């Protein structure tokens, strides 16, 4: 009987009923947001019709009519806006991927240097991080681009034998010319790579089974470097170098590395590396000192200690913030538009938007691209993170 009384619900006024309150709050929120969106939509429709702008993606296939200096796919002034979008997107991806690769290397070096027993090295790393992190990326990019524009022009440079010229247009280097039979070298390289991977697996399995170590470095050198070079000479040197030829004002053809690309890449790498360095330092510090001491007691050298004991354990801590930095670098690559590197924002949200006046679709697509990259990366990293996480019982 007493239990039944307890189960009876207490009476509350509907005004204080949490369920009713929650419903009212949320209904109000849906109403407000919905009304805001509706008002924005109607305003946009009336405003655009007054301006005589028809919002559509019809411009996608029209002729763009402007050149893009840095491109990896064919793009002429007769190409469409759609192609311009792809050129911009590919440039964004290229500068981001190369930037991520280099920033990781530099960031790990600086992060480890920050913990070095060498006082000077750790101080240099400390001030590198402090200075770079406290100056806006935009200023750094502009400053780097500015310094590069002060490099000597092509007219001031004398022709030399190395064929490498650093000018204010970019870096000119000799380019390989592939003649008949050069495919052989490529196959030799590929064969060497496959052979090395096979050898590496064999060596690893042997070490696990017997504890005997085999030289990997030398075999790597032999199979992947010396073997293709030997094939190159045996097959009669089918690859030659085309040296940049000086014209009146510049060199023939495009620069191997254009100045905007180098400046954008340098700026992004230097900036992001400072953040990665802090991430790496925090990760390494999170590995308990006993681990390092135990590894030293086992006779591991400092390098082995770092490579085999500390970094694998620190990696779990490092990975999530590291992913964040990768995403930041990708998003920050949009700043390269300020120094005229033709990436997505500069090409699409800049030139294309100005020419077509289609603000809504153009900005929508641009934002959606970044959003997609962000979401895919965080999804992949979450999946990877779950696989990497410690299995605790």
């Amino acid at each position, binding site marked *: 009987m007493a239990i039944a009384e307890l189960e009876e619900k207490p009476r509350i006024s509907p005004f204080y009923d949490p369920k009713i309150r929650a419903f009212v709050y949320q209904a109000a929120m849906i109403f407000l947001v919905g009304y805001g969106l509706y008002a924005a939509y109607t305003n946009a429709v009336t405003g655009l019709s007054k301006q005589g702008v028809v919002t559509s993606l019809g411009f996608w296939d029209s002729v763009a009519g402007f050149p893009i200096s840095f491109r990896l796919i064919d793009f002429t002034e007769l190409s469409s806006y759609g192609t311009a979008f792809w050129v911009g997107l590919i440039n964004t991806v290229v500068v981001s991927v190369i930037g991520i690769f280099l920033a990781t290397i530099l960031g790990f070096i600086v992060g480890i240097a920050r913990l070095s027993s*060498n006082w000077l090295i750790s101080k240099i790393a400390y001030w590198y991080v*402090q200075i770079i992190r406290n100056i806006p990326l935009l200023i750094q990019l502009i*400053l780097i681009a500015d310094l590069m524009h002060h490099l000597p022009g092509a007219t001031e440079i004398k022709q030399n034998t190395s064929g490498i010229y650093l000018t204010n247009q970019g870096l000119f280097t000799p380019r390989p010319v592939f003649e008949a039979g050069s495919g052989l070298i490529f196959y030799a390289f590929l064969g060497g790579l496959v052979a090395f991977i096979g050898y590496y697996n064999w060596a690893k399995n042997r070490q696990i089974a017997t504890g005997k170590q085999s030289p990997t470095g030398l075999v790597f050198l032999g199979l992947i470097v010396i073997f293709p070079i030997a094939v190159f000479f045996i097959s009669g040197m089918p690859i030659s170098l085309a040296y940049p030829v000086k014209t009146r004002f510049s060199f023939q053809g495009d620069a191997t590395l254009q100045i905007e690309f180098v400046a954008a890449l340098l700026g992004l790498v230097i900036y992001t590396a400072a953040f990665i360095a802090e991430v790496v330092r925090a990760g390494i510090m999170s590995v308990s000192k006993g681990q390092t001491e135990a590894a030293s007691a086992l006779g591991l050298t400092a390098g082995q200690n770092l490579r085999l004991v500390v970094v694998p354990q620190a990696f779990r801590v490092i990975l999530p913030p590291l992913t964040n930095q990768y995403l930041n670098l990708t998003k920050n690559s949009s700043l390269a538009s300020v120094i005229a590197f033709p990436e997505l*924002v500069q090409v699409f949200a800049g030139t294309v938007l100005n020419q077509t006046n289609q*603000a809504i679709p153009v900005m929508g697509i641009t*934002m959606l691209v970044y959003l997609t990259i962000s979401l895919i990366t965080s999804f992949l990293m979450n999946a990877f993170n779950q696989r990497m996480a410690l299995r605790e019982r």
Partner: protein
Amino acid sequence: MSNSVSTNSPSVSFIRKESTQALPPPIRATGALAWIRDNLFSTVFNTVLTFISLALIYLMLMQLLHFAFFDATFTGQDRSACLSSASRPEPGACWSFISTYINYFIYGSYPIDLRWRVNIVYVLFFISMVWVLWINAPKRAWGAISFFIILPIVSYILLLGAPSLGLEKVTTERLGGMVVTFIVAIVGIVVSLPLGILLALGRRSNLPIVKVFCVIFIEFVRGVPLITVLFAANFMLPLFLPPDLNPDRLLRALVAVVLFSAAYMAEVVRAGLQALPKGQYEGANAMGLSYWQSMRLIILPQALKATLPNIVNSNVALFKDTTLVSTVGIFDFVNTLQASFKNPDWATPVTSTTGWLFAAAFYFVCCYSMSSYARTIETRLAIADKR
């Protein structure tokens, strides 16, 4: 055996009463020499590294010092002083250019006879910022009120003018330079912190629809670069709002910056909320406090205190991001610099480099002091939490 010792020794026995003075540690183990050996030359590898980095530091520092000081020009009325001459083939920084333009950088094109208003705003800004950041300051709550409420209102009235108070009206186009940089930063901080707190609370709310809206907003904004948000606000905001509301350029940029930094602030605050032990929430519930009471009196004071260093760091990021408003045509410090380079009276090969170096120094001083403050707070909190 023992007998012979006891019978022979009494006459020669000697027991030292005091310990001798300890010998000084070997010279190689203490002092500057030992420190240098331990910290710079402990191994062959470290020795090599030390020498390489010394050489690098020397080269870079010399380059910088030569440009910024030894070969620099400090006086001069126009470009001729900063050009290369026979006595100085490679001229360094042209500081006389900066000193000529410094008022333009600080005030923009604000009417010269009205600059006292900007000065008052700068002073008020400085006082209230020190007041709110100085932990042992008297009546700190008033500092917060002055920073978050009085400063924005007074600045608005003083900078744009109020004819009813006898202050001449000034359009936002006349604002420029560091004034705009600080306006964007302050508006960003003052508005995005409360907005970020609301978003963070919304994201942790039990109401599913509120939660979904907040998550979508936060993740969307964090997934796109600020520059696209600025572009979108610049081009699309006038379309979405009623035509008679037509917001000016500065306001559009401010909306973008506020929304952008609010999303990041929300994540910082959320981290603080999550770090709070569950007992605090339960305790507040058990006391019979309503949701807003428990947030205001129990949860937020603790969460915000613990996450204060991160809030300051997030504001450093915001301050750095203010440079991006220059891409949508706002005349902030970056754009005034760019405009000043166009003056042919000062057109030299070193003018732009000098200007950007000055900008880098300006932003570094501002951001470094803020992040040093964040670190100090962090250590203080760590000491306070230690039992």
